[in-house]
């Protein structure tokens, strides 16, 4: 015999999967994630090679150095012979040239390039490579010495706290932002389902029939479990879709430290749902009309919206304030703040686990309180039940 919790959960899943809201919502989320992954890659394949004007002579080894530097910056090179320096300047101003190399010893650009752009990385790489070549020439090193110098490896790095490593070493900002939007949308959607689902069971009076056979705690557990599994399935599908699509189009969003950010986002989606689902279930038991739901949904959503806005702001600035760090340990805002802290590389495993533990402990407390409120309020009909009417009896 299937347990009553399993039966309730299975019914919730079946009804949700059948619903148009779920299907349309899933498609929209997949479309949004697909766009976030594909759009940034659209320009990759069509990148123009960098036009490099050469004033005077540039030896073949130096040209090879420039080409290698361009490759390391993810671009190519097209050399343009410039008869005079002034002609090269004119071409730089007109945009025909990206960079001019004067007599193999001076680099000229029209304006200083943006620090993160391809041209900036290219210019930086060329400057370093040509400077290195000049230094090697000036030192009159033998080919063997030069090769040994070129093959130099960085020194190993030793940490004073070897067991404590940062989760990420660089920002995965865009992945964080996409994850934040998903967490926000999914938490809002699934908690609203719970709120309305509980309200509908109360308003249709089916709750009396159900509670005649199932204990309130088990009924509520089945409900949040069923909807939670739907949420997890949807989130899992989106992640698999994102990984497959990202791999297919060669997106940077899912490379480097981004998978860690994504994983932490999933963990916090789960923890966030676990925390909020009980709050929304208790709230749903207080009301039995749609207008009452709307008046209740707004205050409930405030911590979610606050956490989301703070997280998005922090992703944009790239630096977590003290307030934000505190928010990453508070269960109502941690689902938004902690994945961003991971993306920014400003949190370690111990801190991550501590925040998760705080959230789990608080969730247990909230679940007990919510169940007590639910049990008291769900059968009170006629008018909206005031929280103070039931909370005093909840303990």
């Amino acid at each position: 015999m299937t347990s009553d919790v399993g039966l309730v959960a299975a019914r919730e899943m079946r009804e949700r999967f059948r619903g148009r809201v779920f299907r349309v919502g899933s498609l929209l989320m997949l479309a949004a994630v697909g766009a976030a992954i594909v759009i940034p890659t659209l320009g990759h394949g069509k990148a123009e090679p960098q036009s490099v004007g050469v004033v005077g002579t540039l030896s073949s080894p130096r040209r090879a150095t420039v080409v290698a530097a361009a490759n390391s910056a993810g671009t190519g090179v097209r050399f343009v012979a410039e008869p005079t320096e002034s002609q090269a300047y004119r071409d730089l101003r007109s945009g025909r040239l990206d960079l001019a190399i004067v007599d193999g010893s001076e680099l000229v650009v029209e304006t200083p390039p943006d620090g993160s752009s391809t041209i900036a990385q290219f210019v930086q790489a060329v400057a370093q490579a040509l400077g290195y070549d000049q230094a090697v020439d000036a030192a009159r090193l033998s080919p063997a010495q030069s090769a040994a110098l070129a093959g130099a490896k960085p020194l190993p790095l030793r940490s004073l706290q070897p067991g404590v490593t940062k989760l990420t070493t660089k920002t995965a900002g865009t992945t964080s932002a996409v994850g934040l939007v998903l967490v926000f949308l999914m938490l809002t959607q699934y908690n609203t389902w719970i709120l309305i689902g509980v309200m509908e069971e109360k308003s249709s009076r089916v709750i009396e029939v159900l509670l005649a056979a199932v204990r309130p705690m088990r009924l509520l557990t089945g409900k949040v479990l069923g909807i939670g599994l739907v949420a997890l399935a949807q989130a899992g599908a989106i992640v698999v879709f994102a990984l497959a699509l990202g791999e297919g189009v060669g997106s940077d969003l899912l490379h480097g430290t981004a998978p860690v950010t994504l994983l932490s986002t999933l963990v916090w989606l789960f923890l966030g749902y676990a925390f909020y689902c009980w709050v929304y279930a208790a709230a749903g038991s207080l009301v039995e009309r749609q207008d009452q739901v709307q008046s209740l949904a707004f205050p409930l959503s405030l911590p979610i919206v606050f956490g989301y806005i703070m997280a998005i702001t922090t992703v944009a600035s790239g630096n977590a304030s003290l307030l934000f760090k505190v928010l990453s340990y508070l269960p109502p805002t941690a689902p938004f703040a902690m994945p961003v802290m991971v993306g920014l590389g400003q949190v370690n495993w111990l801190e991550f686990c501590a925040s998760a533990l705080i959230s789990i402990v608080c969730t247990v407390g909230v679940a007990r309180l919510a169940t007590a409120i639910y049990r008291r309020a769900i059968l009170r009909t006629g008018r909206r039940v005031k929280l103070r009417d039931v909370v005093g009896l909840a303990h």
Partner: protein
Amino acid sequence: MALLELEGLTRRFGLLTALDHLSFSVPAGQVVGFLGPNGAGKTTTMRAVFGLTDLDAGTVKWNGTPVGATQRRRFGYMPEERGLYPSMLVGEQLEYLGRLHGMSGADARAASRTWLDRLGVADRYGSKVEALSHGNQQRVQLAAALVHGPELLVLDEPLAGLDPAGIEAIGDVLVEQARSGCCVLLSSHQLDQVEDLCESVTVIDHGRLIVSGRVDDLATAGARRLVVRVEGDREAAWARDLAGVIISEVAAGEARLVINEGIDSDAVLQAAMAAGRVTEFVFQRRRLSEVFREALA
């Protein structure tokens, strides 16, 4: 024989006492009517059987044992304000409720079909509840209470809003259930229908027991009833001044009289004949509505 016992049920909502040391029992094998005016405490009593309201005092027992979750899974309940998922399919809903009461999937499916067929709504197995008429929703609601083969049926106003065919169909099922050994307790305001359906009734008011017993016993107890029709006196003016006679009801020229003990019916007949030609003179049982009115008086 199975037996539901309610012992000293007390429930207060603030200053209001909904149930006041209420005690009565419901034996198996008969349909028991549960009567009382609005606000008497009927619904609160029924909810107490299913643990849907907290009791300040008292115990609900099933076969001598306090009722718990295990026993309640063998009970069937039809709440006053009908309770089904509006957008769920009828058949799936019944299966779901059957399984919540411990049935296997196959058994619940078979029982759902059986009961929908028995109640005349087999063709609505795949319909959404919200698409059904009121009467058919009522039938499905009863099927939901019956699907798991309960030992006790508690039905709050099961006949409300039904047409005569619906009342007869549901009434037949309830009597059949009682005959097969089920305890059936139903509340209703339609006293004539309860009289036809129930073998026993319990009347409560202000949460207290007023009267309880077999319908036959209650109907034959108390003062005698006489129905008299006198031609030309549609208002039964002839009976107004008769000592020891109370006019209970006058309708369509027919006077229903309550004759006090010690009053000779021959004297009443002579008074009627003196007023005109007597076309009807019959002793009758108390109607349930009279039992109800007199109990609450």
